[in-house]
């Protein structure tokens, strides 16, 4: 009887190792290339949008009472007389160097603004995704394990509600109920005005900075302000994650190997968590990454309600002020993070799946 598994020689093993390393290098190169191309596309889009804007950027600079010479000089100085390709190349160069132009409203380089506001959004989204995973995954598994029961229906409805409720509306209602009426949470803003400016911003994330400064009172205050927006983001996250987890689990539970586990006499709890759940961990990572990216996007809506000084608020303010540099810069940054997370989870999927390894 010819067993397939004969131990390979040392030479063969080295060959396999070399092959695997080379494939990893190629995969990494492909990863970088895809991100680069996609980002280029994004930059092209923002460049295009910037040109489509009916506002004349030269006029915005010199004002409409300037003479023709001043207008022309400014135009040349801004590089707007060069051919489009050159302008685009300059634009890409600028972007890669972090030069997004100046913001009309803050009169600061957009880059500085973005560095300032990004951590606030990051903190909120990170807490949101933790809530989403910790609650959403067990919810989805439970729904799949009890398919067809009222428990399943409730969880599915929660999943659908996460698709159907406008984030800004939920934020508004949440704030009205939990802050204004019940006084259970802190109000808008990251911290009470009372404490504003007390903590030196090290990372930009309140929870970390307050702990670093050792000020527990302010820490709890920050928590009370963070809890509501993070929970709302968490709700949308858990709805999506639960929905996807349920779908994945249903797929697995209908497979033969689950029957095998039951035939062996394995307790149902282990059948679900040790057998059926294991293969979906990897697709779940993709789902969670996508949800995280989605939360960064969703923060745009929430931050206005909570007066949260994050990138979303920055973007919406810039939109209303027609501050195109700020708008496009924010779009680029959020877009870049989004692209990175998407492609990264793509790659992670292929790397981690044992079935893909051989």
């Amino acid at each position, binding site marked *: *009887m010819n*067993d*397939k*598994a*004969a*131990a390979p020689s040392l030479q063969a093993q080295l060959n396999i190792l070399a092959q695997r390393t080379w494939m990893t290098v190629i995969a990494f190169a492909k990863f970088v290339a895809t991100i680069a191309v996609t980002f280029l596309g994004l930059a092209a889009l923002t460049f295009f949008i910037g040109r489509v804007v009916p506002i004349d950027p030269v006029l915005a600079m010199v004002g409409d009472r300037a003479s023709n010479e001043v207008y022309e000089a400014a135009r040349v100085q801004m590089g707007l007389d060069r051919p489009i390709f050159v302008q685009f190349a300059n634009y890409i160069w600028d972007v890669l160097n972090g030069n997004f132009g100046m913001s009309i409203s803050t009169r600061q380089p957009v880059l500085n603004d973005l560095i300032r506001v990004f951590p606030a959004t990051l903190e909120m989204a990170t807490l949101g995704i933790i809530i989403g995973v910790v609650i959403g995954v067990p919810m989805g598994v439970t729904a799949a394990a009890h398919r067809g029961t009222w428990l399943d229906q409730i969880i599915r409805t929660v999943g659908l509600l996460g698709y159907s409720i406008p984030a800004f509306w939920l934020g508004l209602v949440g704030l009205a109920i939990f802050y204004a009426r019940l006084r259970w949470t802190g109000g808008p803003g990251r911290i009470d005005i009372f404490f504003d400016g007390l903590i030196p911003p090290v990372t930009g994330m309140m929870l970390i900075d307050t702990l670093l400064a050792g000020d527990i009172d302010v820490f709890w205050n920050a928590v009370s302000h963070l809890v509501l927006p993070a929970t709302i983001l968490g709700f949308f996250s858990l709805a999506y994650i639960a929905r996807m987890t349920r779908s994945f689990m249903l797929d697995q539970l209908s*497979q*033969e*190997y689950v*029957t*095998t*586990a*039951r*035939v*062996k*006499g*394995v*307790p*149902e709890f282990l059948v679900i968590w040790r*057998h059926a759940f*294991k*293969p979906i961990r990897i697709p779940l990572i993709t789902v969670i990454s996508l949800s995280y990216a989605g939360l960064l996007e969703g923060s745009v809506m929430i931050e206005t309600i909570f007066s949260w000084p994050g990138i979303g608020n920055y973007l919406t303010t810039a939109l209303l002020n027609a501050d195109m540099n700020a708008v496009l810069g924010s779009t680029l940054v959020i877009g870049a993070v989004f692209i990175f997370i998407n492609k990264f989870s793509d790659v992670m999927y292929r790397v981690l799946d*044992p*079935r893909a390894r*051989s």
Partner: protein
Amino acid sequence: MRNLLNIDNLTVTFPTNNGPVDVVKGISLSLGRERLGIVGESGSGKSMTGRAILKLIRSPGKVKADRLEFDGIDILSQSERQMRSIRGARISMVMQDPKFSLNPVMTVGTQIAEAIKTHQKLSAQEINDKTLAMLKSVRIENPERVLGLYPHEVSGGMGQRIMIAMMLVPEPDLLIADEPTSALDVSVQAQVLDIIDNLVTSKGMGLILISHDLNLVSSYCDRILVMRAGEIVEECVASELHAAKHPYTQGLLAAMPKIDEDREWLPVFEDMSGSQT
């Protein structure tokens, strides 16, 4: 000597768009420590019978019987918890395709060890020894290496042998083999069946071999049941299969090509009775 299995009037029903359908219609059988073959085409209800014995049929399917008894235990009245101590430890099942019936993200060793651990408390060393011994008994050379492999890294034949090892390692009294060789190459089929046959006879187990292959069943079984559309149409001793009385069985036998075949056309069964329900 008490029979291993006593079934009277077993019915399995599933709801469909056109009303409830009985996929198994009131069959009865008994089994001692012998090898019983159940033959039939797809949809005859043979697999469902096997699953009903293990109480694996979940809602919306419904199982009814006057008697469904294993070694004196009334299966129908057992709770899930009680069934769990029966499954694996007393009744086991080998399924068709190891590509699908083995967990793709757990190593072979872990899966077999689980079969042991679920029913016995042994030390890690004892579990390891037992696993290796079992793998050797299904004629796997190099069992130490196989322990660390994933199911997709072994061939079909070896996968099925691993499945057999996993299902027999807790030493059950009854093995149900549901189309154990249908997914394998013809050259490997006989080997796998030999292994099942040897292990079952040496341990004095009962065997229910479910298949669509009449030849196979007649070679490896003592008695044969022929099922059609949920009912048992023939019951005979394997050696007397050629003397079968029911026209369906005779039709099946006639439809098998012989090595010295001289007929132009193989007979085809005309479906006189119409479709189910």
